[in-house]
């Protein structure tokens, strides 16, 4: 009979409590990035630069509307077009560099950690591979490594881009109009609390689905391990009924989790919308006072900037889960790398051949 390795669920292990603090893990991972330090530095710089050049776009629109189009000052295009083109090109180039360099960093870093794990596994005590543990060990250089790979590729850059976008948007907004900025971000604390609180609720719902999922997995595993007996006793119908029942429970739990997790988005969107309405209401009034305290271009830019900090903020909150699971994956990988070698052995080339 074949063993049960391979089905071991990473998620199940994620429920275990973590012991190593994040900063220790991050520092150790950073040390792994040393061989690709240059790539990392270029990648991070390009990421931030890409976010900033992306933010320049609405401002350039505002400038075009206010100082070129509205007064029909077409000569302004002579400097505006090259500048705008440069911003677009810069943005493109930075994103290109960012994606490429961060990919190199992520792949090489994880590969190096994986190599270290493999090397360690060859020297640790055989007791380490006791039955039942095999699945757990196998999932570290495979599933866990993959989680970290994807996190560095998608999560880390998203976090960098999101933070840069949020801070950049704030800076530009406050530079353009302090009063309107304060009004625009007034809904922010409510949004953060809401997303955090409801997010917690939905995380709990998803954790509950894990229980039904492991029940389903266990059922499947048992049925397959005993399939010969099931066939010999023509018991297929009965076992299928039980399997379908356990599957239905899982489907129900997952659907409930989907309901909860998707139900908080409308609230967040409503808050963003209220922000837009505040900007429009006060912006239009400011535009109509004599003399106007704001320009049309700035008003439109505000609406766009509000869009460009709100979305990253939500993204950042949902990224929290990814960050957490990447951290526990990293912790488990280091756990393998740090395993003590009980019987330190001479390397093969120095071992004595018995005649």
């Amino acid at each position, binding site marked *: *009979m*074949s*063993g049960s390795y*391979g*089905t071991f*669920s990473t998620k199940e292990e994620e429920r275990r409590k973590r012991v190593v603090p994040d900063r220790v893990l991050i520092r150790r991972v950073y040390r792994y990035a040393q061989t690709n330090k240059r790539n990392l530095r270029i990648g991070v710089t390009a990421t931030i630069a890409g976010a900033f050049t992306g933010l320049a*776009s609405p401002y350039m*629109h505002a400038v075009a*509307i206010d100082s*070129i*189009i509205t*007064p*029909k000052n*077409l000569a302004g*295009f002579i400097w505006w077009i090259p500048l*705008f*083109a440069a911003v*677009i090109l810069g*943005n*493109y180039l930075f*994103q*290109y*560099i960012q994606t*490429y360099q961060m*990919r190199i960093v992520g792949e*090489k870093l994880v590969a190096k950690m994986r*190599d270290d794990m*493999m*090397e360690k596994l*060859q*020297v640790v005590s*055989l007791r380490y591979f006791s039955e039942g543990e*095999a699945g757990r060990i196998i999932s570290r250089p*495979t599933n866990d490594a993959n989680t970290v790979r994807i996190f560095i590729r998608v999560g880390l850059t998203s976090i960098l881009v999101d933070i840069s976008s949020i801070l950049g948007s704030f800076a530009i907004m406050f530079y353009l109009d302090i009063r309107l900025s304060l009004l625009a971000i007034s809904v922010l604390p409510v949004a953060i609390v809401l997303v955090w609180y409801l997010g917690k609720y939905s995380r709990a719902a998803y954790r509950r689905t894990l229980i039904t999922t492991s029940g*389903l997995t266990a059922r*499947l*595993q048992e049925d*397959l391990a*005993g399939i*010969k*007996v099931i*066939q010999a*006793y*023509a*018991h297929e119908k009965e076992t*299928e009924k039980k*399997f379908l029942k356990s599957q239905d429970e899982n*489907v129900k739990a997952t659907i409930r989790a*989907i309901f909860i997790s998707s*139900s908080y*988005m409308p609230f967040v*969107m*409503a808050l963003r*919308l209220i922000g837009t309405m505040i900007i*429009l209401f006060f912006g*239009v009034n400011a*535009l*109509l006072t004599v003399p106007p305290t704001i320009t049309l271009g700035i008003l*439109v830019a505000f609406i766009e900037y509000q869009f460009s900090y709100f979305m990253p903020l939500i993204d950042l909150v949902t990224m929290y889960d990814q960050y957490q699971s990447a951290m526990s994956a990293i912790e488990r990988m280091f756990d393998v790398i740090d395993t003590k070698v009980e019987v330190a052995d001479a390397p*093969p080339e120095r071992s004595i051949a018995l005649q």
Partner: protein
Amino acid sequence: MSIAKPLLDYAKSLKPQKGFTQSFSAFKRLLQYHRRYPWHVAAIVVLAVLRSILFSLEPLYTSYIIIYVIGPPTNTSLLMGYLLVILLAGIGYAITNFLLTYVHGVMSQYIVRDIRSEYYRSLQTKSFSFYDSVGVGDLTSRATVDLQLVDMFLRTWLGTVLNAVFTTIIIIAIILPISPTMTLISMATMPLIFYFTTHLWIDTMPLFRNMQLIMGRLTSYIQQNIVGMKTIRIFRREKDVVDGFKKVEDIYVNTAITAGKIQSMYMPLGPALLTLGAALVYVYAGITLGVPYSALAVEQIGYLILFVRYMMRLTFPIRDVSQTLGTWIAAYAGLQRVQEIIDAPRSVEDMPNARDIKIEKGKLELENVTFGYVKDRPVLKNVTFAVQPGEKIAILGATGSGKSSLIYLIPRFYDIQAGSIKIDGIDIREFKLASLRRQIGVVLQDVFLFSGTLRENIAFGKPDASMDEIVQAAKSARIHDFIESLPSGYDTPVGERGVTLSGGQKQRITIARALVTNPKILIMDDSLSFVDAKTEQEIQSAIEEATKKRTTLIIAQRFSTIKTAEKLLVLENGSVAEFGTHEELMARDGVYKKVYETQFVQKASPILWEGGGS
């Protein structure tokens, strides 16, 4: 030769071509599952249209505010009305978005459930040799991990695609009447974006697929390494294992980086092109603008802002579509692994004229039976013998002689290629499979018990068995006294959280399980060899009691079993070498006599040939 050589060759042999048409046919097959949920699909379409319309209202009404409220002429009385429309559209958008996500998620769950059920059902019909070749872990992970990838794709794909299509259509429908020229300018880059997005997909998909394939092999390489660590240590191949691993991993990393390079070139191109289009719109608007600060100029500026903001908004659906294409690549690999199993051939099926037949006597006749797992490589050749009702036949033979294969043919775990097997003169293919198997008691070599109570395990073949029948079966299997000695008796749970049973106890429970249906025919694989004398004796007594008055085929390892059998069947390389009573075979001076004398007489240990085996 390096341990990783086959893996390395495999990784190198992967060509980053083809796969596109395969992916398409897999997608079509996935689409078939959607047909069962027409209402969900319809709801998604309607909600997607609604969502796209509501999404486009805010920029439109903001521009109306610029044109009609700010003016000139200024008309502040309209402001609250427009703001209200924006608010209602926003709330409507939020609600439709929520409903869409939910309905999509529900549909995805249902489809994954359908695929998993189909997968499960197909597994029930696979042959024993299928299960000997594919591990339980692998099969389970296909139904869980791989289907999770499919779920990821199914949760959003339709909504995302429809969103991109409808949003583009609705935006064009709004801006085209306002200014055909500006629409043309702003949409000029769309074909390019479409082209690059498809290109990105076509170029990277084979690479990602290769990555997944390599990773799948690497995972089993690691598995083998860990499971076979002892052997590797003994032969001091550790360095070899790691070096081979690194070589294959290098191919993986390089493929990933190549894919990353292609992605990094194409992915930011869409938004860049859209922004470039926006610049062109500005220039055109600037040139055609009417007298500055006039009502006409304000209208033009208001619409200019609308055009540019719509173009910025379009970057989101485009980004979502390329992300969905990414999830499809992963889902496709997962789907393929599931479909591969579903499509694997079934072992045996009911014949069209099959019926429920009651076995009255239990006479068994095999005539010229030929069978092989692979065509043209027969494991059994021209096997002919007959068993009278109630007779016990012990089957003997070396490992690989076809003993297990022979007994597996009786309940039709496999179908024979030539000849016939008859029970009471009726060909076993005329029986319904369930009817045949329920009337034949089977004790396999592998003593598997399900999690549950002892009572449930014994009553497995007859869930409605009375307590009397269960106790009777347990008594015959000589396990009743042991069960009674447990604090919870027959309600004692077995399995992970239950009582730990010895191999001998487990075997007797499986014997009780076979007896509870009171079968006329019993087949047993008694290969449990290395047990202590007491267990040996208990099992022996159980087998003796169990086989009374039943037609029995038993693979024998013990002399005591052979002794009580009416006849002996000696298999050699898939053919019947000798068949007859102990005395007859001893008189023949053949294989049996030789083995009998060397193994049973000389050694006290009653193990025939090399024990175990199949």
